[in-house]
């Protein structure tokens, strides 16, 4: 075994001296995959870039050393550094749509860093395209990134990174933007490359379930510090740091509806970390000793930055399954009903004869991949898609197909929550003003608008004091809560939630799911559009599986997910990532961890 990566004491600072990552050390042997996990703002991407001796504008690498193979990355002159980035260490960015230059052909993108003649380069490009499972003909090499699907783009980005056979490859959330089955395929590809080329890789993600499926080692980052580091299996079995435990608890399980435990508070901003242990202000186990910052120390097989590493033994069993509305008898009176819905884009039919009903206090999950028509369906229900036929009923009364024809009452009864709260909240309006705008359509609430708004904010766990803030001053999770509060202000009967958790970190997702569950308990009906079956398991009472615009399977959630009858549902289930330990416990379908994937190939 040879050491491929040795980083020590790596510190990255902002120009004002506040550190973004502090004293990070990593070491990787040849052929190993290290996962780096943490919430947004934990410094994991900064770390990934620092390993390539790269710092974003206004940020500098203040100290430490990075040694990849025999190259001291931080000691190189610009020309040697470029050579090292071409040959020794490669990088794959999160969003291939943004990371691939739209003006250049795939052939140019793949080969531009290579030395050698044109013919040789083209041969290499074809080889690598075959390897990543893409066509290798001349026409394909002449295409540009935007002519590819998201999954194909990410394959190109990976091909671009491995074509020069680097010693180390750094993947920064490479599957985060992809839907479940594409994600499974790209992860498969990464695993396969790791095995066939004996690649050494760093894999950055906020999702422990993803990391657990590719990595043999894991580094847990929080507030720019390593809080736990060690072998994957060891950390999954006995997480010793409360933060690692919290991250594990936030991952929704496919097997049972669990009490998801969100992590209270938020990741400290750069320069705002508490003096003592950096996690102490959010930690349920903090004691007096946590007021001085603990050093990393070896406990069992892992490095832990906690004064109470023995906690690992006392965290106890996994979160309790909660069956609060699981299997609850169906309420006969549907609040929202759709019968025989067909929807079109131009002459192309998107939805075929879709029928469904939403009941009060229960959640219907609409599940499918990108392009299955699930977002079109929710847009039809809210009345934003004009080209639609079929019948809608609200409270048993006919509901016009488009929002323009609906009366004020119907509009209030149905409320829509968008996927991306950054885009759905007006950035130039305060939170309070955004909510007040929704109130304007409720004349009866005019007498006490302030009280109604405060009530709605309280309901979603946001202090009404934040009403004077702008969306940009809130975290992603808070913004999504505000978007939900805006829907609640209208006093709705049904919430239409379009992928409301898919742009959020796993830990933040947990808190939003908990909130939505409590709203269900209040008697709201809910339609929840998603591609993530683990989320479905944790919120839905009934499920409609949508494939190519048709409902292929529909029924009670535990039945559909427990004994899926349609092959499409089965494949969706198989592609949903789980923490491997749970899967072993419960003997359910799961993406096999890396070692066994090699065996099955």
């Amino acid at each position, binding site marked *: 075994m040879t050491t491929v990566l040795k980083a020590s004491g790596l510190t990255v600072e902002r120009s004002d001296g506040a550190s973004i990552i502090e004293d990070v050390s990593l070491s990787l042997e040849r052929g190993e995959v290290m996962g780096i996990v943490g919430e947004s703002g934990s410094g994991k991407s900064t770390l990934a870039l620092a390993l390539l001796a790269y710092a974003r504008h206004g940020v500098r690498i203040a100290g430490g050393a990075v040694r990849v193979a025999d190259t001291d990355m931080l000691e190189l002159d610009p020309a040697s550094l470029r050579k090292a980035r071409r040959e020794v260490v490669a990088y794959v960015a999160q969003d291939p749509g943004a990371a691939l230059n*739209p003006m250049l052909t795939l052939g140019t993108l793949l080969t531009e860093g290579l030395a050698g003649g044109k013919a040789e380069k083209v041969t290499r490009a074809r080889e690598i395209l075959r390897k990543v499972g893409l066509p290798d003909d001349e026409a394909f090499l002449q295409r540009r990134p*935007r002519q590819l699907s998201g999954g194909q783009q990410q394959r190109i980005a990976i091909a671009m990174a491995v074509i020069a056979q680097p010693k180390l490859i750094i993947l920064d959330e490479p599957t985060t933007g992809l839907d479940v089955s594409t994600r499974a395929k790209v992860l498969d590809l990464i695993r396969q490359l790791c095995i066939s080329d004996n690649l050494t890789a760093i894999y950055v993600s906020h999702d422990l379930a993803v990391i657990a499926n590719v990595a043999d080692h894991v580094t847990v980052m929080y507030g720019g510090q390593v809080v736990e580091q060690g072998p994957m299996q060891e950390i999954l079995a006995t997480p010793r740091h409360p933060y690692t435990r919290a991250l594990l608890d936030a991952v929704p399980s496919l097997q049972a509806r669990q009490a998801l435990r969100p992590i209270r508070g938020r990741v400290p901003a750069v320069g705002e970390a508490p003096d003592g242990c950096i996690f102490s202000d959010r930690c349920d186990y903090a004691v007096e000793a946590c007021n001085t910052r603990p050093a990393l120390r070896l406990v069992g097989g892992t490095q832990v930055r906690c004064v109470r590493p023995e906690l690992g033994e006392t965290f106890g069993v996994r979160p309790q399954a909660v069956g609060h509305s699981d299997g609850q008898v169906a309420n006969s009176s549907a609040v929202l009903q759709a019968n025989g819905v067909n929807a079109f884009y131009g002459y192309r039919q998107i939805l075929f004869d879709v029928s469904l009903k939403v009941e009060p206090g229960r959640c219907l999950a609409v599940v499918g991949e990108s392009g299955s028509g699930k977002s079109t369906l929710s847009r039809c229900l809210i009345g934003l898609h004009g080209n639609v036929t079929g019948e809608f009923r609200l409270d048993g009364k006919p509901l016009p197909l488009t929002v323009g024809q609906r009366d004020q009452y119907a509009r209030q009864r149905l409320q829509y929550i968008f996927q991306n709260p950054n885009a759905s909240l007006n950035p130039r309006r305060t939170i309070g003003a955004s909510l007040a705008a929704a109130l304007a359509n409720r004349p009866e609430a005019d007498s006490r608008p302030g009280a109604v708004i405060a009530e709605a904010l309280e309901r979603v766990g946001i202090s009404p004091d934040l009403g004077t803030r702008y969306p940009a001053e809130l975290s992603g999770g808070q913004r999504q809560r505000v978007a939900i509060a805006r829907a609640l202000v209208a006093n709705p009967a049904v919430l239409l939630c379009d992928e409301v958790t898919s742009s959020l970190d796993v830990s933040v997702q947990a808190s939003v799911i908990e909130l939505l569950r409590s709203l269900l308990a209040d008697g709201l009906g809910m339609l929840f559009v998603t591609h993530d079956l683990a989320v479905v398991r944790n919120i839905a009472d009934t499920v409609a599986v949508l494939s190519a615009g048709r409902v292929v399977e529909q029924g009670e959630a535990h039945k559909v997910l427990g004994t899926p009858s349609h092959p499409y549902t089965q494949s969706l289930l198989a592609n949903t990532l789980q923490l491997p330990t749970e899967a072993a416990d419960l003997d359910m379908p799961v993406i096999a961890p890396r070692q066994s994937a090699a065996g099955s190939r």
Partner: protein
Amino acid sequence: MTVENQSDNATIGVFSRLQPLLARVSQGAMTLLAVSLLIFLAARALPGDVANMILGQSATQEQLDLLRTQLGLDQPLWWQYLVWLGGILRGDWGTSLSNGQPVADLLALGVRNSATLSGVALAIMLPLSLLVGVIAAQFRDGFVDKVFLGMSMVANAVPDFVTGTVLVALFATTVLHVLPAVSFIPPGDSPFSYPDALVLPATTVIIPGVMYLARLVRVAVIDVMATEYIQTAELKGLSPSRILFRHALPNAVAPIIPAASLVAAFTVGGVVVVEYLFAYPGVGSALVDAVTNRDLPVIQANVLVIASAYFIFNLIADSLAQRDETAGQRPSKT
């Protein structure tokens, strides 16, 4: 993972690209028709009687009436318009009222001189804007950048004729005496035979153009340099020059091209003032002379030429913007 079918897109692509172009050309033809009517009416609305101007104060009423009949000025306006329009469509632009020459001949001289001036100005302006913009972007927030931004603010705020006058004072009359203050080019000679006569008028056009376009280039380059694909290119270890020329510039130029075509259109229109200032014998100065003389056919012809040039550059700008929108767009989402 399936490969999307491209052939469908290609066939649809040809039609969907040609159709809007044809639509825009016919729409443009309608616009020019409307413009011609406006020009005609505006020219007729100029104060002063044409016959009076030609014959002078001493002319008798009979002489005036006779001339009016000869010129067709006694016909109803709509008829005069149709006669004029019909003439243009047949290639007959009429004759000048002041010197009796065919308007087409005068126009040909003016168009050649003006086209030369605008062409020279644009040929220098466009690459220079790119260069200045890229340099300003590279030294973003540095001394060079701040000087450029300050200068561009001044240059854009000052009208062309002031810029021109200052240049004349600097290089022709007051400070230095290296260039002619008036661009005398004998009728029929090519402006290229008198390069020193071109320098000041061209510079007067170039300065505000460069100062405006280079600002756009600067912002576009700064935006592109902040994208993830430039970061990726840096992380791939590419050389700074390859990153700038192959990765950044093609993306930065795309949004500039429509703006550049619009600047070209403005340049053609703005040449009127500059030509007048330097007495440069082009469409612009011909127009000013014709207005002074109430030479209706010449006025109409010159304005129509300027309007058409403006229209053509606008058409180019629109088509380029359209191409940018359609090019490289994701095919259907699957």
